[in-house]
């Protein structure tokens, strides 16, 4: 089981859920499962997002493994000057 | 567009070039003479990146019509170092990390040379005002000012020994 915390920017899709527990070994699988639960969220999450797994921010994270018990956040991609 | 024949001395060499009469010395130096160390940052005398010495006076090459150089002596960044030795200012800029991107550096070095030629022992405030016509966006000026002061001190000591 992992914990996924949604930013308020996703609230239009996740409704009242700001945190869920789910079983997903990779980011790709997680997004697929989330899209089944919250239709349309997959497109939003695939589109220029970074993923924070246990505090570490990972861009291009789609194939990243998620360790059991991890806390996952979806973030806007960060660039910089 | 009329072109004017210009004869002058650049970095110790007698040089002839044909220039567009209303063109700037900056464009002539870069395009006609090939001295690409003279940089254009603004073209209006507000940034100092094109600073050169004309008859030992620091000026912005972008604010000089090319034909005005007739008979004058011009020194650009390409003429600052000796064959096997950098000018002390150049050496101090390197050692003092006085440059980041480096595009303003030629202009700063020429303006600093003009300053030290006239005032070998400037205060920090004098250096800051003497270099106020040169914009640097990378460094915050701190290391540039220190490097000019270091160079001045080194040149004074060498001068005292010589």
């Amino acid at each position: 089981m992992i914990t996924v915390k949604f930013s308020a920017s996703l609230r239009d899709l996740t409704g009242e859920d700001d945190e869920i527990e789910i079983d997903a070994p990779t980011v790709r699988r997680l997004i697929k499962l989330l899209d089944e639960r919250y239709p349309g969220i997959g497109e939003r999450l695939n589109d220029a997002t970074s993923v924070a797994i246990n505090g570490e921010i990972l861009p291009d994270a789609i194939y990243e493994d998620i360790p059991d018990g991890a806390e996952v956040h979806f973030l806007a991609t960060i660039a910089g000057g | 567009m009329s072109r004017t024949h210009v004869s002058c001395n650049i970095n110790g060499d007698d040089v002839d070039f044909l220039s567009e009469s209303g063109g700037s010395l900056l464009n002539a130096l870069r395009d006609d003479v090939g001295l690409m160390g003279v940089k254009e940052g603004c073209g209006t005398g507000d940034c100092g990146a094109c600073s050169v010495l004309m008859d030992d006076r620091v000026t912005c090459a972008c604010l000089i019509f090319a034909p005005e150089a007739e008979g004058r002596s011009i020194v650009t960044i390409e003429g600052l170092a000796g064959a096997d030795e950098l000018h002390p200012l150049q050496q101090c800029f390197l050692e003092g990390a006085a440059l980041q991107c480096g595009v303003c550096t030629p202009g700063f070095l020429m303006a600093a040379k003009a300053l030290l030629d006239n005032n070998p022992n400037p205060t920090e405030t004098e250096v800051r005002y003497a270099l106020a016509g040169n914009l640097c966006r990378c460094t915050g000026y701190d290391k540039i000012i220190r490097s000019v002061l270091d160079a001045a001190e080194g040149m004074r000591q060498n001068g005292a020994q010589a």
Partner: protein
Amino acid sequence: MTMTEDPKNAPSYKWVGSRSIRPDGLDKVTGKARFGADLKLPNMLEGAVTRSPHAHARIVSIDTSAAEAMPGVHAVITAADLPDLAEAGAKTDDVFMSAKVLARDKVLWEGHPVAAVAATSREQARAAADAIDVVYETLPHVLTVDEALADGAPVLHDTMITKGADPVPEHASNAASRALHERGELDKGFADADLVLEREYTTKPVHQGYIEPHACVADAGQDGRAELFVSSQGHFSMRAMTATTLGWEPSQLNVTPAEIGGGFGGKTTIYLEPLAVRLSTKAGRPVRLVMDRGEVFKATGPTSGSRMKIKMGVTNDGQITAAEVWMAFEAGAFPGSPVGAAAMTAIACYDIPNFVVEGFDVVCNKPKVAAYRAPGAPIIAYGIESIIDELAKGIEMDPIDLRLKNAAVEGTQASYGPQFPRIGFVETLEAIRDSEHYKSPVPEGCGRGMASGFWFNIGGNSTATVHINEDGNVNVITGSPDIGGSRASMALFAAEEFGIDVDRVSANIADTQTIGFNDVTGGSRVTLATGSVVIDCCRAIKEDLRRRAAKTWDCEVDDVEWVDGQAQHASGTETPLSLADLAAKAPRTGGPISVTKSNNVRGAGAGFTTQLVDVEVDDELGVCRVVRYTTAQDAGKAIHPSYVEGQMQGGVVQGIGWAFNEEYIHRPDGTLDNPSFLDYRIPVASDLPMIETIVVEVPNPNHPYGVRGVGEAGIVPPMAAIANAIDDAVDCRLVDLPMSPVRLLDAINQRGE
């Protein structure tokens, strides 16, 4: 001055942390360094761009015939010469990027390119560009977020529906997207507070102000390929974006990086490049395109102007209980302001239990914004760090103590989501608190202020190659343009890894056909990410060198160690083999010694800074000068301390310019009133004191040497620090940037009214 977390346990290095001469230094002090405008190819044409004189207009027609007939003109292009990406079903962002480089149906800001010309001289090109006859039907324009969001405002993009809005709007508007971060219960948080303040702040667009204008040279062949020489922060990105707008594959372009004369984020995107390539394909000759300063100001990216509303509550003992933040950022003509990052960074320094942070990305008729140093963070920090100062004064608490009490630390759930790993915010606060500056009395007639700032820092994609030359010297090759001395750091990494003199390392940046992919130089990523890959290369080579030495000595690899630049046999029986010895034997031990590594580097370490400033105010003139400035920043590890200090000082001084004078001033007709360095006033040397630096080193555990990245955070606090110091000096709270003499005198006049 450097403060390391625990000096006793800090590893000692010979080269890392030393102040070596930068590899590119000699060329830059002698005028040899070749920047974007410095390449002159045989047969080269000069280009010029025709730009919109209007802030918003429909293009009725473009007649290029007169220009084409002019002497010396070899090519004229308009949007018709580029593929219509909208028609091709491309991504919206790419359609906008294409429309940015060459307007198709509408011009959206003064300076928007509509055509370009290549001719045998600059003057001929300029004359022809001016002779292109464009008929416009002007449209009403919007210049600020207030104008753009007003009811009935003219809409720039008639299909743009606000992303992230809940509910989804039915009609197009100028609000491109909404970002939102929430936690806890706002009402409860404010109810718990003893002091609640509510303030509004505004900022104006400011430009990165690099001294080198944009420039490139394109040389297209008859084979559908082109060479591009360009000053940018990332030639691989230039290649990708240029190819997209041309409808090419990236591999059709080889992009060679020029030396870059400053970027600060502004040279991470394309402007001239596709035009130069297209002109070159049309003319069959090389084409150079160089902007003048006016074009740089009018047509390249500033960062956003903004309006912000902030409400914050604190208890009498200094606990910040709640924050409500609303902000709208100007994106310019196309979506993409840094409001998302601003929303993430807004209160990231602090552990606040209840908050709502909401941000809107708003288009208007100004140039599309580009990244600028910690994009978004300095803007919102102006408000946040100002209101925190007011709260501290309100509860009579030292502003450093208030920040310490609420500071994010390792394990704090960052306002933007994840938990912070080891970070050094507290250490920067303590460094300032313990500084001689902070302990010194405030000079007579002056005021003192402080503020803090945060930037994520990033990793990303990098490739590096390291060769050992046949003489045993080292070539390091990366694809990351060097905008602030990164070659020096790459050389130091290699020298440290191999245990050789740094003078034996040459650090280079190669073109897109010579080295593998690298992301743009930005986000403070190069020393961290490209540095990591260089270190990986060096370590792989050291393994290889040990194998080769073992082969030479006919022993086990485990018996060979690499010490101080040479292979040594553990028994001490063999004469050590230096890099030069091993390089000489290379043909007999497996061939040339060379390794290429690449990675999408993770593990960026967040960067924090705290800054302290003393200002002197002439209260009859409204003129404020900085008399002393100290900045403490967590670098993780300073690889080349001089260039770390340089980044800190440069960021601070850009912030000082932003605080006092820098702004885009638009006339009512939407044209820019100050497109020159005379009236867009970046700081000059005589405006400033020395900028004192305290390099804090809380190592990033994810980097071999502890690097975090130092390019961005420095610009975040200065505007608020100065506002706080002005308030201390003259009891005036300025809430609009820039805090110009006119504004400051006005505030002084109204004081006590």
